[in-house]
């Protein structure tokens, strides 16, 4: 009976990390072309204080409230990055580095306080650092899946608009697309993906879920559509395999396993990828070399 329950819970958790991976792979592809990979890292770290504050305020671990808290503090982080960049001489990457570290440090500080408070010890808030998919209950899984599907839906329905927004913003504006609107939706979708992912993957490694599938997909695809689909697939499979592996031991964190699986896909893509993969580039070089050498031989024979 117990094993059956455990198995069914694992099934739910698997489903949720897979959906999360799909959503993260898709939005990660957009972050890649917006050249905002570090931004997703900063935002996920910035979510931590919000999670703990939400817990301290409501006194229980309700995922929906924690997600709202996380989203608020990630957005504050995003706003700070933008504000620092535009109102001072500090460059964007420095601003992101600062916000990332300060918010994370503040989050850990709050976490220590929360853990000392009554009942805090059993709260399982620590799982937000490295991710603990197994600690999710049925309602958590449902919340997460619904939001992940929403993210995928938003990207799929405006595929053509996203493409022109990412490729040529000025032109997009010229034909009547609102850049402010697109940027707002983009940030909302990105933050949603990050905050639903932090319980399963953790704030430290969440950015990897966004970045690695996209760069892996880049080695295989020659169209934006195929890159999106592939990136999404890499994300989904990494989520599933990582969760499965981490379920072998009790209390193993999910995040690191998912990231290691994703990195495995990246290494395979880097070597065998058909677009500029290392192997294909080497073979092409060799073929060219042979051809030129053969030509040179023919020439020298002709001279004789």
């Amino acid at each position, binding site marked *: 009976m117990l094993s059956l329950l455990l198995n069914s819970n694992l099934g739910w958790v698997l489903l949720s990390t897979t959906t999360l991976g799909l959503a993260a792979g898709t939005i990660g592809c957009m972050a890649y072309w917006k050249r905002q990979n570090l931004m997703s890292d900063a935002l996920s770290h910035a979510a931590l204080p919000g999670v703990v504050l939400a817990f301290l305020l409501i006194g229980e671990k309700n995922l929906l409230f924690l997600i709202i808290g996380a989203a608020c503090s990630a957005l504050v982080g995003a706003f700070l990055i933008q504000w620092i960049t535009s109102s001072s001489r500090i460059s964007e990457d420095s601003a992101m580095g600062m916000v990332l570290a300060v918010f994370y440090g503040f989050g850990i500080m709050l976490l220590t306080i929360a853990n000392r408070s009554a009942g805090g010890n059993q709260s399982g808030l620590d799982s937000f650092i490295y991710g603990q998919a197994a600690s999710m209950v049925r309602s958590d899984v449902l919340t997460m899946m619904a939001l992940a599907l929403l993210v995928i839906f938003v990207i799929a329905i405006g595929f053509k608009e996203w493409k*022109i927004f990412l*490729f040529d913003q*000025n032109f997009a504006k010229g034909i009547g697309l609102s850049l402010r609107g697109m940027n707002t939706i983009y940030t909302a979708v990105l933050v949603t993906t990050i905050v639903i992912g932090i319980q399963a993957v953790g704030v430290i490694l969440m950015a990897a879920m966004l970045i690695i599938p996209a760069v892996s997909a880049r080695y295989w695809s020659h169209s934006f559509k195929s890159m999106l689909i592939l990136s999404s697939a890499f994300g989904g499979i990494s989520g599933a395999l990582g969760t499965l592996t981490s379920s072998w031991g009790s209390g193993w964190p999910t995040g690191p396993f998912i990231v290691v699986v994703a990195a495995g896909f990246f290494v395979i893509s880097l070597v065998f990828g058909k677009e500029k993969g290392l192997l294909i580039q080497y073979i092409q070089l060799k073929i060219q070399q042979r051809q030129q050498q053969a030509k040179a031989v023919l020439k020298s024979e002709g001279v004789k």
Partner: protein
Amino acid sequence: MGNSIIKVEDLSASYRKNTVLEDISFEVEPGSLTAIVGPNGAGKSTLMKTMLDLHPLLTGNVTYFGLPFQKAKKRIGYVPQRGSVDWDFPTDALDVVTMGLYGKIGWLKRPSKKHRELAFEALKKMGMEDYANRQISQLSGGQQQRVFLARALVQQADLYFMDEPLAGVDAATERAIMATLKELNEIGKTVLVVHHDLQTVMDYFDHVLFLNRTIISHGKTNEIFTKENIAQTYGGNMRLIGGEFQHVVSTSE
């Protein structure tokens, strides 16, 4: 010029604390082909971007067909500088040209076969039909420029803005682009081009606008393309070699 197609009144623009453009007022006749010329940093691209609402307007007013930009933008095509986008983006030439139809297709709808055929026709016009399915990262600079021009053509605008379409392209591409501009001009379209090569202004354009932070002179090429105006715009560093207007070379470079 009561029938002018563009009317710019007292426009100014700046980058951070530097004023780049001041006191810009001019009108453009329908069906004209105008070159905007001036030295580096004269504000040529900024003028274009400000007129197209891509850069903030500090003062002044721009109207098209008697309407504000927001109401007229469907009738305006813009070809940005080639370097303004990332050509590594995973897509092919035909797809980029199809983007020119997105406004017509409507938001959230997919392009149909008919749209793709229109885009292919535009590519063909630019002599690029063999490259329709080529990755844009694998096109040469001139080919990329032709793709951009094809994307503008497919928009079927009445008024075109082009930012240095001839920069860094080979002779064949230059001919193809200029032939297209002439053709657009012949069917009554109005075209404004940021241009950097003074030698070809006389051959290619019927109007010229000398710009150096403000308008030095604007009018018909055969009336105002003079040594004095060139010298005033470029700060006296220009020398005319050979016959009058034949070869203009910047001695500052």
